[in-house]
């Protein structure tokens, strides 16, 4: 028999979905800013593997010559990004949700098992409460990345007023690179996250929107006669 199981509290769902457009605006406007000075690339020897970014990329997404606009969006929405993130962290601390989210001593082994399972190398996934080990690590890491973006962002936004912070992060140029790498991290997170949500299916996705999941209720005696035990 089916039953509805309460999964995500409304606050968690709100924080999650509000973050979606805010983070989108931050990444988009950040790219408008980055275009004005875009030296980053990944290369081995003289071979450039990835160029951040080829001109076609800027052209396709219409990101060129919009530095002023990008800065305006970025320096307004940074407040919303910070506020939403801080409220989320406070909420998880006050209402105990952190217990499901912070990795514990089993999480790393579990994350490995989950990874093997997801790659089709292991038959069973480890049992999980709300989040499995891989999720705990990923969701906690992305919050730390958020803090990292705030700190590296502040270090490049006010490098004289917060010269100590900028110095601690390796200097102005390094802090800018760190800020960029964190953003690449969000984009990678996003793609893996979407893939996992698609894999996990409708019931899981609905949980993040409606708050409940449908589970088989084993506590109720099944109306059908039970199969004979072998």
């Amino acid at each position, binding site marked *: 028999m089916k039953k509805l199981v309460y999964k995500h509290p409304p606050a968690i769902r709100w924080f999650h979905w509000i973050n979606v457009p805010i983070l989108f605006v931050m990444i988009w406007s950040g790219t408008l800013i980055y275009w004005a000075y875009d030296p980053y690339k990944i290369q081995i020897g003289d071979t450039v593997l990835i160029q951040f970014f080829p001109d076609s990329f800027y052209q396709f997404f219409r990101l060129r010559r919009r530095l002023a606009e990008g*800065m*305006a969006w970025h320096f307004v929405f940074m407040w919303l990004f910070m506020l939403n993130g801080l409220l989320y962290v406070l909420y998880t601390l006050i209402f105990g949700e952190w217990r499901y989210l912070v990795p514990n001593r089993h999480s790393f082994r579990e994350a490995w098992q989950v990874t093997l399972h997801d790659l089709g190398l292991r038959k069973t996934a480890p049992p999980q409460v709300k989040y499995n080990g891989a999720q705990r690590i990923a969701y906690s890491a992305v919050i730390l990345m958020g803090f990292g973006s705030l700190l590296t962002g502040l270090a490049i936004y*006010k490098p004289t007023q917060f010269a100590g912070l900028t110095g601690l992060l390796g200097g102005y140029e390094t802090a800018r690179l760190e800020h960029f790498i964190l953003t690449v991290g969000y984009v990678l997170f996003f793609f893996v996250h979407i893939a996992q949500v698609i894999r996990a299916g409708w019931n899981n996705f609905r949980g993040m929107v409606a708050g409940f999941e449908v589970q088989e209720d084993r506590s109720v005696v099944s109306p059908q006669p039970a199969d004979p035990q072998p």
Partner: protein
Amino acid sequence: MTPEENTGERLPERKTHREELTTDQQIRRRTLKAFAWFGLAALVPAGIWKWITTRPRAGGIPAPFRKALQANEAVAGSYFSPTHLAPTFPKERAARKVRVNGWDGLKTALDPEAWRLQVEQPGKPALQLTLDDLKTLPKQEIIFQFKCIEGWSQIQHWGGVRFADFVEKYDLGRRPGSGERFGYVGMKTPDGGYYVGIDMPSALHPQTLLAYEMNGEPLTVPHGAPLRLIIPVKYGVKNLKRIGHIWFSDDRPRDFWAERGYDYHVGL
């Protein structure tokens, strides 16, 4: 059976009604309801986007952004301090080839002999100063990381006089009656092709220089000869080259890049 007939327990009507739904019906209803709200809520960011991008523009960006940037400026003012210094570097680290990034205000020829620094302020006769006049003030050198609003930076070596010493010597920047400081300093090139406005606390910051030397040599034309502003608490856009006029006011002086969509303050 109505709730009244149910003698055992008295449940509120709504709950009783819900109990009559099968689990499948409940799932269906709650899912539909949640996604209807979700769809409606998704219209909010779309609406905000539409609202922002259709506002009248102020200085090249939507007016609400201009307001928000001014609020950011107020926040920045709360932690700005003249004791917060831009980090300095040893001379060896200064770039030999100093980057040139703009020609606005430098597009006409300049006769260095005829050049005078024009200083205007209300209630006083204008000053016309030569470079030698300025050189009577103590010379200051700074090797710091110059930061362009585009994102690049370069360690550069400049020499000149402190702006704070300059206003002190010529008794500038105070209102005639009260003797209080004006809020802003305005500067522009002799041809008026480039102009900046700077808040007084940033102008009086101890690292703000009226510079006449780069790497120990007199300024070259591309770098703003004969005199330019070096202001480490601002992005490069405020470091006006070839200063022609300086004036003081409580209204914000016009600013070249603030009229083209950029933040007015651009404080670092």
